[in-house]
C-alpha cells in the first residue's frame, strides 16, 4: 500500500515539476505579479542569506581546504591538488553542502508557506480569481531559487579556491600564477557542465518538492508540521540520490 501511494505521489510530483519547468520557457507566463515573486525568491535565496553564508563558507573553506592541502602534502600528492580542488571540492562538495543549507532554509520556508496558504484557503482564492498558482507562485519561486542557488554555488566555489590558495601560499609559498594554472589544467568542460546542471537541478527540487508537499497538505493546521517533516526527509533523499548520480556520471 505504501509503495503504491509512493508511486502515485512520485507520478503526481513528476507532472507538477514538468509543468513548472515547461512554464519557465514560455515568456507569456511572466507578468508583473510573477516577476515580483521571482525577484523576491532570488533575494531570499541568494541575497538575504549572504552575511551568514559568507561566514560559514569561509569557515568551511578554511577547514576543508586546510585538510586537503595538508593531506596532499603529507602523502606527497601536491601535483593532484588542482584535481582535488576542482573535482572533489567544487564539482561535488560545494553543490551538495549548499543544497543541504538551502533545503533547511528555503525548502522548509516554501513548504510552510504553501501549506499555510492551502489550509487558509488562500490557494482557493487565487483559483477563484483566475490566477494560475503554478504561473504566479511555483514557477517563479523555482526559477528564482535555481538562479539564486547557481550564484551562491559560484560564490562558494570562489571562497573555497581563495581559501585553498591562502593555505598553499602559507605552507608551500605557491604563487598565484602557478595555483591558477594548476586549476586550469584540472578543469574540463564536463566539470563545468556537471557543476552548472547540478546546481540548477538542486535549486529546482528545493522549491518544487516543498511546494508539492504543501499542496498535498490536508486542510487542517495540525497537518502542517507533518508536511514539513515529509519535505525535509524527501529533500534529503533526493539530494543524496542526485549526488550519487553525479558521481557516477563524473567517473563514466
Amino acid at each position, binding site marked *: 500500500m505504501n509503495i503504491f501511494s509512493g508511486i502515485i505521489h512520485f507520478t503526481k510530483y513528476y507532472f507538477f515539476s514538468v509543468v513548472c519547468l515547461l512554464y519557465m520557457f514560455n515568456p507569456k507566463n511572466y*507578468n*508583473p*505579479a*510573477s516577476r*515580483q515573486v521571482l525577484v523576491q525568491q532570488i533575494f531570499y535565496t541568494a541575497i538575504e542569506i549572504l552575511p551568514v553564508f559568507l561566514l560559514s563558507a569561509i569557515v568551511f573553506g578554511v577547514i576543508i581546504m586546510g585538510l586537503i592541502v595538508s593531506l596532499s602534502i603529507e602523502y606527497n600528492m601536491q601535483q593532484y591538488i588542482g584535481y582535488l580542488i576542482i573535482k572533489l571540492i567544487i564539482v561535488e562538495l560545494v553543490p551538495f553542502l549548499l543544497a543541504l543549507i538551502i533545503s533547511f532554509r528555503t525548502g522548509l520556508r516554501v513548504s510552510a*508557506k504553501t501549506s*499555510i*496558504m492551502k489550509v*487558509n*484557503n*488562500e490557494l*482557493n*482564492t*487565487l483559483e*477563484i*480569481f*483566475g*490566477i494560475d498558482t503554478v504561473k*504566479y507562485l511555483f514557477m517563479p519561486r523555482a526559477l528564482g531559487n535555481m538562479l539564486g542557488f547557481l550564484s551562491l554555488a559560484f560564490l562558494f566555489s570562489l571562497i573555497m579556491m581563495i581559501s585553498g590558495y591562502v593555505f598553499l601560499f602559507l605552507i608551500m609559498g605557491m604563487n598565484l600564477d602557478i595555483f591558477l594554472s594548476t586549476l586550469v589544467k584540472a578543469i574540463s568542460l564536463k566539470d563545468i557542465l556537471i557543476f552548472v546542471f547540478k546546481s540548477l537541478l538542486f535549486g529546482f527540487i528545493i522549491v518544487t518538492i516543498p511546494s508539492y508537499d504543501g499542496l498535498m497538505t490536508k486542510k487542517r493546521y495540525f497537518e502542517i508540521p507533518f508536511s514539513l517533516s515529509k519535505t525535509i526527509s524527501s529533500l534529503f533523499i533526493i539530494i543524496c540520490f542526485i549526488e550519487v548520480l553525479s558521481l557516477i556520471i563524473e567517473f563514466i
Partner: protein
Amino acid sequence: MFYRGVIINNRIYIKIFEDIDTLNKYIESEKTSIVSENTPLLSELTVTQNISLILEYHNRFNIKKSKKITSNLLQKSGLEELRDKLPFEIGKKDRLLIQFLRAYVSSCEMITIIKPFSMIDKIEDIDYIIKLSNIFNKRIQIVDTTLHNYYKENKCLIIK
C-alpha cells in the same frame, strides 16, 4: 431556483436561499467576482498588494500603475491608512471591504458577497458596502441562506 430577495438600490440587492446547496448551485451558474469567507486575503501580502495582484496578473499593469489605481480606490473608500497593513493587522469589517475592492478590480461586472454576516460582527458594518455601491460602478448582490437556520448554531452577535 427559489430564493427570496430585497432590492436595496439600483445596484445592490440581497438574495436569501433556503439552503447552502441551492446557494452554491446559484453561484456556480453566475459569472461574478466573489467576496466570501472562503476567498480570504493573501496573508503574506499587504492590503495594496492584495488588490493590485489582480491588476498585475490579469491586466499586466506594471507595479507603479497598479499601485496608483489601488491607492485611488483606497482613498475613495476612505481606507488609505490601511495601505501597507497585512490582513491580520486589520479588523473584520476592513477585511471585508478590502475583499470587496479586490473583487471590484477584477473583470467581472457583478460582485457577489457570500454570507457577509458571518464575516462581520455587527450588521451595521454592511452599510459601508451599500455606501460604496454608490461610488463604484458595479452591480452587487449579497447572497445568504435563511438567516435563522444559518446562525442558530453559531455564537453570532447579530442574533444576540
